[in-house]
């Protein structure tokens, strides 16, 4: 018989925002409405903090956080039995609300892939997909010094260039790249910043005509 983590008397007053997840989990299933309400209020405040952390930079961040936290709270209630470990209640519910925020931001087109406009009517954006990969022997013979020199002239900032080439040419992980950029800029740069910067700039390179022409000449050689 599992021992209740909550004393029968005065359960409600034992619950605080610092109560262990197992205790909150048990209270969420209590037959006593006041205990169950107290438990879900604790979860609400936690879910709102999580959602708010993710949405604070959005113009309607507070409203979005409230909306996502409310939806998540109902979902936690409905799916509580799927939380296999009561001790993991907060991390499990955090996943629910963070997934909701990401989904909401994607739907609102706040996390859009970068759309590259054509350079001009004479130079439409290049499409690489149909060209197929360069054969291995072409890659072996590619003039990498010329490639590096070309990329020095690419439409990327110095940091963006370091981040893209550091990963692919020098095999460095984002933690190392972030540390380097932090030292260079004297401001904290996180690995997550490095990843986003790299993705956006690879999208720019994808449509850079000079790179396309360079690799096209390699393929024709």
């Amino acid at each position: 018989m599992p021992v209740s983590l909550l004393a029968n008397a005065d359960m409600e007053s034992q619950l605080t925002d610092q109560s262990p997840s197992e205790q909150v989990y048990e209270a969420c299933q209590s037959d006593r409405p006041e205990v169950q309400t107290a438990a879900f209020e604790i979860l609400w405040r936690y879910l709102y903090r999580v959602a708010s952390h993710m949405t604070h930079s959005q113009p309607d961040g507070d409203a979005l956080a409230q909306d996502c936290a409310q939806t998540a709270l109902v979902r936690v209630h409905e799916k509580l039995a799927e939380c296999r470990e009561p001790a993991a209640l907060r991390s499990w519910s955090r996943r629910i609300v963070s997934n909701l925020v990401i989904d909401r931001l994607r739907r609102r087109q706040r996390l859009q892939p970068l759309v590259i406009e054509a350079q001009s009517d004479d130079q439409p954006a290049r499409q690489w997909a149909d060209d197929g990969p360069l054969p291995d022997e072409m890659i072996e013979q590619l003039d990498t010094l010329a490639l590096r020199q070309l990329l020095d002239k690419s439409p990327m900032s110095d940091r963006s260039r370091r981040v893209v080439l550091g990963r692919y040419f020098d095999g460095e992980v984002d933690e190392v790249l972030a540390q380097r950029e932090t030292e260079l800029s004297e401001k904290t740069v996180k690995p997550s910043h490095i990843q986003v910067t790299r993705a956006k700039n690879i999208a720019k390179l994808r449509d850079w005509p000079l790179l396309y022409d360079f690799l096209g000449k390699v393929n024709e050689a």
Partner: protein
Amino acid sequence: MSEVMNTPTGKIPPERLKAFLAVLQTRTSIDLNETFLDRLHRYVTLQLRGDVYQQHDPELAAWLDQDPGLAEAYALLYDLEAAVLAGNLSNPDHVPDPDLSFLTASPSLAERLAERVTRTGRELVLRFSEDLLALLRPGPQLAAGFRQADSGRYGILLYTLDGQSLGDPLPLTFNAYADREQPDFCLIEIEVALPDRSWPDLAGVVVELAQGDRLLQSETDAWGLAVFENVPIALLPETRIVLPLN
């Protein structure tokens, strides 16, 4: 102050060059469904643990470079989990009140069962659903022991229905126990209580458990107990139990 990169003269390893060209050639837009988000969560967890996360999931690492929207979603998760680890989660000045009306708005178990149970002269069919399962979660005071010897493996009760205690009784008791050795599966016990049969004549009743195309059958023992092992928990909302009534 930005620095101009000195152009190294070293040759780029072919496999890195190939990876660079591959990511340049591929424009990806990933569908961020729940399964994929779980994968993203795992990636972030490994990264924050200091594991070689890009080697654990090189496919995802490549996608993150190919899809800026995916990279931004990853960044949100990374920043969140890093803040949780560091104890720096946002503490808003004002937290609005929640709407907790859902705690009292649920239909009663009897109302829900009335929708989900059908009886003919020959059989009773109980069709589960997410809503019904939500009402079958055990309270904390319920015993978690499993009837058989291996109570360690099946010590956690996931769902329970005592059909005999209802205002409109059902001739069964249903219990689902988590399987500690297989977290995605459960063991189901169905105890049959037919009015015209009693111990030891409760044996031999064939109980069916259907989940989509999958049909399982189990015969009751002398106590009227039918057991189903290795039942996927994720499919419980689609489960149907068929019990002969004579």
